[in-house]
């Protein structure tokens, strides 16, 4: 078929086709692009005055004619009916082209043709005419024809894959051309070149709108097609009302339909009544389009459109009875199948939303059905359930019908309808009515069994498309086991056929089938066939087979499948290796019968596809091996690792994992041949030159561990390793450098190394990052794939492995000894014990790796320099400086943060004076009670949150049973490495902690004071040897003891009166009154009177205050300001530095 008149375009295409090579083609394209660019540029440079005439003339055709001696120029113009216009145009042309109107022939042409003589231009020659034409075009711009031609060329060039970075404007401007050919080009090219995000498209909105609201149907089609194909949000917003109006006014067919779902979602609301009007339309074309619109509307908001339903049903009835359907809308005897299928979609959606009422009749051509239905309107008002059942029946009937007439109608229509019907049925929850169900299964059965392989490919495809849809429906309906096994058998047949498409679909549907519970075993029968498909030359089939294998894997067949996958891994192409290795790793982890198998699989995996094994996979192995308690397994793992190291070329990941495992556990192998520390070291060290910087730190740790495990030390090995350490001490990589420096310094320490480099503690259990990853990637696929569903079902299985190990939620408690409380008869102590059980639980939290704060990822655990088993967060600022950079270490060995032991001292010294802290805490509510380099105990108010890796504060609850000056003693011990630290601490739960200051007025005080007359409720004593202090100082002291001084109660200025409330289990709240009489002449003695409602309380309080007054701690400790008459009741200050002595004193 010849190209209609566009010679230039044909020539250009031929030129391109004739190009010998890519270079020539590019040259030709560049030339053409240059040409088009110039043309378009000239167009833009047009003189803007007289623009209107130019636009007018641009639509004209120029013919140059020679009549005898006279040369004439004829310009054909359309639409020139007006004489006034003619003369004005004549003037313009005369001026522009310097020519005179040809007077004689004017009338004859009645304004449509103009004859002009051109004295100044030599039009007689071909050259001259060319000159004139180009001049004409220069003045009036490109003709629409030329524009059209250039724009088509642009599209062609664009299609060839060249960048076209100009001319979009021209393409868009063609849309506004007045005539169809140009307009059409404009629309088509615009919709190909631009997308909805393009700015130029905005320029077209107005024109498109004009075309939509215009009278020309063809233009409307073009405009609507454009909107449908690329319509973006802006189009939707500005055009929706017009499209809506158009749909209401005119009878434009299909175009309106798909336009609407594509772009007008935002605007189409409240159309329901108009929709209803639309549905009254008799014209089938309008109905078709409005149905599509209705589908879109309903998909947005079904509520509003219920009113349309009866009408839809009526229309369908009309269609079904073949009444009043114009001949042109029947297709192979079927009334308007497209309309009907649109209805189906609409109903589908309506049902999808509410599970309500009818849809399927669309397909319905069984006329007697309508008789059953009777009145359609009343049908619409029936109950939902009935509606669903009915629709199901209708659907099934229509399926029957389709099956019966399948041969008569066009394959694709038949296919589309059947597929759609069954899709529609899948929208229902399930079919409940037994009769419906039975007949549906009959249909399905017929489809399943009656589909034969035929010669004709297209027919075969069509029938199988229906078949697979039927399978999907069977799965959806969750049919009886018998039917299911039939399906699986069928699929089993399919996966063995030669036809690749069918085989592919067989595998795919079998994967979906896994969702159905019972069929698992039946599918397993086909395992061998599926594994064969894994080796199919077609990657699509291999992928499906892999998916299926992955999905069908469970504990029983995991070993086979994983081994099959591993075997296949070595031959698989690169596109699949990553997926394959990930899937193998996940399956191995999920279904591993035992750990050594798992380790074995992963090591094989790393060996075969190292590049595709992500870090997660090897971290996971290390985690499992470390957390595993069975020594044999660990041993086997390290043996495997050792074997792999023997291979000449191994992947770096393998080096990492082997080095790590051997570092930790190679000493278990030491007796085997070839596994002495030295040999292990040598074989690992061989790999060092080949690995990247990320692996070197792991190797360094391994060396350090090997060194540590070599007992007795092997001098030569030590020297070798030290040489390596010192070599890397100046490495530019900070991680490597730090490790080298630290390990070097540590390994100099000899025995202490053992503790620091002890086996890694168990990792806290986490969700496998692999499984998580798999879940993530499965979430990608839109389908609710069977695999995903199964993964969800089997999460418990996934944990099988993990459960075998002890739960590691709790941290390694063993490092902290239990807190012991000395057994004391004193009631006060036993209450303290209760409180301390809290402390016991909480104290464990001082561990370096508190369980509440697992380190963010596995990487942190494995690649961190070493687990430093000391309280990292609680180191006091005044303790030894931490190693910030390893460089200083050489100078000062003691400065190592991770070397807790000073060379000469084997005991751990508390920091600060325990007694001093005790006394300070007697007066304060919070503060440090005990501190040594490894632990710090602090008493404080109850913390609200416990920050990770920071101090942990443990609330200590002490209940006072009865008044006593005895103190609770906290005997706590913990183990740091080999050092046992045991400290007995007096808790500052002194008497005054149970006091609550209360200010009393004279009116309250004196009656109380008088009522408590004499011993044992009121006691008086003269205290000597009091530390001299001013009255104000004493008042302060009393206040800090929570004995509030009430001024003004005693007329004597040298006396103090204080009051407080005492709380205990036995006394409840009890008011205590204190009077101190001082002697201004001798401040070392005073007389105090204590009164309270309880004799014991009075006595204890008196003794307590006396102790406070005579033994107030002073900052300068060594020369203890011992009162000369120190009594045995007051704790001997000299002994305070020894906690044991404190206890002894107390007992």
């Amino acid at each position: 078929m010849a190209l209609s008149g566009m010679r230039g375009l044909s020539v250009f295409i031929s030129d391109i086709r004739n190009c010998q090579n890519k270079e020539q083609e590019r040259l030709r394209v560049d030339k053409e692009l240059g040409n088009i660019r110039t043309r378009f540029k000239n167009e833009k440079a047009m003189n803007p005055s007289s623009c209107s005439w130019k636009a007018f003339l641009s639509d004209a055709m120029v013919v140059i004619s020679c009549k005898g001696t006279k040369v004439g120029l004829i310009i054909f113009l359309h639409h020139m009916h007006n004489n006034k216009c003619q003369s004005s145009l004549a003037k313009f042309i005369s001026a522009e082209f310097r020519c005179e109107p040809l007077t004689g022939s004017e009338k004859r042409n009645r304004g449509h043709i103009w004859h002009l003589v051109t004295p100044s231009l030599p039009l007689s020659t071909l050259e001259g005419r060319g000159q004139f034409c180009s001049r004409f075009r220069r003045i009036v711009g490109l003709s629409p024809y030329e524009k059209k031609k250039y724009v088509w060329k642009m599209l062609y060039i664009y299609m060839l894959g060249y960048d076209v970075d100009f001319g979009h404007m021209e393409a868009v401007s063609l849309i506004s051309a007045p005539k169809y050919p140009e307009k059409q080009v404009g629309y088509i090219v615009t919709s190909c070149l631009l997308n909805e995000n393009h700015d130029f498209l905005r320029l077209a909105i107005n024109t498109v709108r004009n075309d939509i609201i215009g009278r020309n149907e063809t233009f409307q089609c073009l405009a609507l097609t454009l909107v449908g194909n690329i319509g973006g949000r802006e189009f939707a917003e500005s055009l929706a009302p017009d499209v809506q109006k158009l749909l209401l006014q005119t009878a434009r067919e299909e175009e309106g339909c798909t336009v609407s779902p594509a772009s007008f979602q935002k605007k189409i609301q409240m159309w329901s009544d108009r929709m209803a009007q639309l549905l009254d339309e008799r014209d089938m074309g309008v109905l078709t389009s409005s149905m599509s619109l209705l589908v879109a509307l309903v998909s947005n908001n079904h509520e509003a459109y219920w009113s349309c339903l009866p009408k839809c049903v009526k229309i369908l009835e009309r269609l079904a009875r073949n009444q009043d359907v114009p001949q042109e809308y029947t297709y192979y005897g079927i009334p308007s199948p497209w309309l009907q299928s649109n209805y189906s979609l609409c109903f589908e959606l309506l049902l999808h939303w509410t599970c309500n009422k009818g849809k399927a009749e669309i397909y319905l051509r069984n006329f007697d059905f309508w008789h059953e239905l009777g009145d359609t309107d009343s049908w619409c008002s029936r109950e939902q359930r009935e509606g669903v059942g009915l629709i199901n029946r209708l659907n099934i009937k229509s399926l029957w019908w389709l099956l019966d007439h399948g041969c008569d109608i066009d394959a694709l229509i038949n296919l589309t309808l059947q597929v759609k019907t069954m899709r529609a049925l899948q929208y229902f929850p399930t079919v409940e009515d037994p009769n419906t169900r039975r007949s549906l299964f009959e249909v399905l059965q017929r489809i399943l069994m009656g589909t034969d392989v035929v010669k004709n490919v297209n027919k075969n495809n069509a029938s199988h498309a229906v078949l697979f849809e039927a399978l999907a429906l069977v799965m959806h309906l969750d049919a009886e086991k018998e039917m299911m096994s039939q399906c699986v058998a069928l699929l089993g047949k399919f996966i063995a056929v030669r036809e690749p498409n069918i085989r592919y679909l067989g595998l795919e549907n079998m994967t979906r089938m896994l969702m159905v519970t019972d069929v698992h075993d039946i599918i397993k029968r086909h395992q061998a066939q599926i594994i064969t498909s894994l080796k199919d030359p077609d990657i699509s089939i291999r992928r499906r087979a892999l998916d299926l294998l992955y999905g069908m894997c469970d504990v029983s067949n995991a070993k086979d499948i994983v081994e099959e996958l591993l075997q296949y891994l070595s031959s698989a192409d690169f596109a699949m290796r990553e997926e394959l290795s990930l899937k193998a790793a996940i399956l191995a982890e999920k279904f591993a019968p035992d750990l050594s198998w798992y380790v074995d699989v992963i090591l094989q995996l790393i060996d075969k596809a190292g590049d595709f094994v992500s870090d997660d996979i090897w971290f996971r192995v290390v985690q499992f091996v470390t957390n595993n308690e069975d020594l044999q397994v660990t041993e086997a793992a390290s043996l495997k690792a050792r074997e792999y190291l023997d291979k000449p070329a191994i992947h770096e990941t393998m080096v990492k994992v082997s080095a790590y495992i051997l570092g930790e556990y190679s000493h278990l192998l030491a007796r085997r041949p070839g596994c002495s520390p030295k040999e292990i070291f040598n074989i690992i060290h061989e790999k060092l030159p080949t690995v990247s910087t990320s692996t070197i730190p792991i190797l360094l740790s391994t060396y350090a561990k090997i060194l540590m495990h070599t007992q007795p030390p092997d001098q030569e090995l030590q020297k070798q390793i030290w040489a390596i350490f010192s070599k890397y001490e100046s490495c530019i990589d900070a991680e490597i450098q730090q490790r080298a420096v630290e390990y070097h310094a540590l390994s100099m320490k000899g025995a202490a190394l053992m503790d620091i480099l002890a086996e890694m503690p168990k990792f806290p259990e986490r969700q496998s990052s692999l499984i998580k990853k798999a879940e993530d990637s499965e979430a990608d696929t839109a389908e609710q794939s069977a695999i995903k569903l199964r993964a969800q079902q089997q999460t418990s299985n996934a944990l099988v492995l993990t459960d075998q190990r002890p739960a590691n939620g709790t941290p390694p408690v063993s490092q902290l000894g239990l807190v012991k409380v000395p057994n004391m008869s004193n009631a006060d102590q036993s209450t303290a014990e209760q409180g301390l059980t809290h402390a016991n639980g909480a104290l464990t939290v001082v561990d370096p790796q508190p369980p509440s704060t697992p380190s963010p990822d596995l990487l942190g655990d494995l690649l961190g320099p070493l687990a430093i088993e000391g309280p990292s967060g609680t180191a006091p600022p005044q303790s030894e400086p931490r190693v910030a950079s390893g460089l200083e270490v050489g100078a000062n060995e003691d400065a190592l943060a991770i070397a807790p032991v000073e060379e000469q001292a084997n005991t751990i010294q508390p920091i600060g004076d325990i007694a001093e802290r005790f006394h300070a805490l007697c007066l304060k509510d919070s503060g440090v009670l005990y501190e040594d380099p490894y632990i710090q105990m602090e008493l404080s108010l109850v913390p609200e949150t416990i920050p990770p890796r920071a101090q942990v504060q443990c609330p200590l609850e002490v209940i006072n049973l009865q008044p006593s000056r005895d103190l609770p003693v906290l005997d706590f011990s913990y183990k740091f490495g080999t050092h046992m630290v045991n400290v007995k601490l007096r808790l500052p739960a002194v008497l005054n902690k149970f006091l609550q200051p209360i200010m009393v007025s004279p009116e309250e005080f004196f009656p109380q004071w008088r009522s408590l007359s004499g011993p044992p409720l009121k006691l008086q004593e003269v205290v000597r040897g009091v530390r001299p202090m001013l009255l104000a100082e004493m008042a302060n002291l009393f206040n800090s003891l929570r004995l509030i001084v009430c001024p003004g109660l005693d007329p004597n200025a040298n006396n103090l009166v204080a009051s407080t409330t005492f709380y205990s289990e036995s006394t409840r709240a009890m008011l205590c009154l204190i009077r101190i009489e001082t002697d201004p002449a001798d401040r070392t003695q005073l007389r105090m009177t204590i009164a309270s409602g309880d004799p014991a309380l009075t006595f204890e309080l008196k003794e307590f205050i006396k102790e406070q007054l005579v033994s107030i701690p002073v900052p300068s400790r060594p020369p203890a300001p011992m009162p000369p008459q120190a009594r045995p009741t007051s704790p001997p200050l000299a002994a305070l530095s020894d906690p044991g002595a404190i206890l002894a004193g107390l007992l």
Partner: protein
Amino acid sequence: MSHLFEFATIDLASKNSVAEQHDRLFNRSKGRARVDLRLIHQLHSLIRFILLQNRQGKTRLAKYYIPLEESEKHKVEYEVHRLVVNRDPKFTNFVEFRTHKVIYRRYAGLFFSLCVDITDNELAYLESIHLFVEILDHFFSNVCELDLVFNFHKVYLILDEFILAGELQETSKKAIIERMGELEKQE
């Protein structure tokens, strides 16, 4: 916006992931509203694009029903060509392409490729390619690649009659041929 949201609740999880996947597939940044619009398409399985390429990878027709940048389009064409061209005729007609599926069919030296959802009925789309070819064959009376090269603009017109906004809009050969005749009269 509210009704859109309502719509999205049908199956929020899967629809959202579709939209995200879509974003990822064609790694573009775009407004929220467009994502919502696309949700609609999920219900009627949308054709993402249709490509006609010869064995050398020359594109003879390319139509996208989702907005793509130019560079992305060229990349997609290149990738799809590479994906299908070396496939044995004995292989399946379906290839996974990123997160979608390409249904292709080869006629002589020409590959017709449709990009659809993973869950779509593959065979039905395979047959629709055949229908398109039949229409072309009818229109050009015994179509060959040259017809499509020199009349590529006609092919675009026919395609517009056959597929609109990513959906099959007309499945009748006759109707399309008649419509084309009608349009040609106007030129």
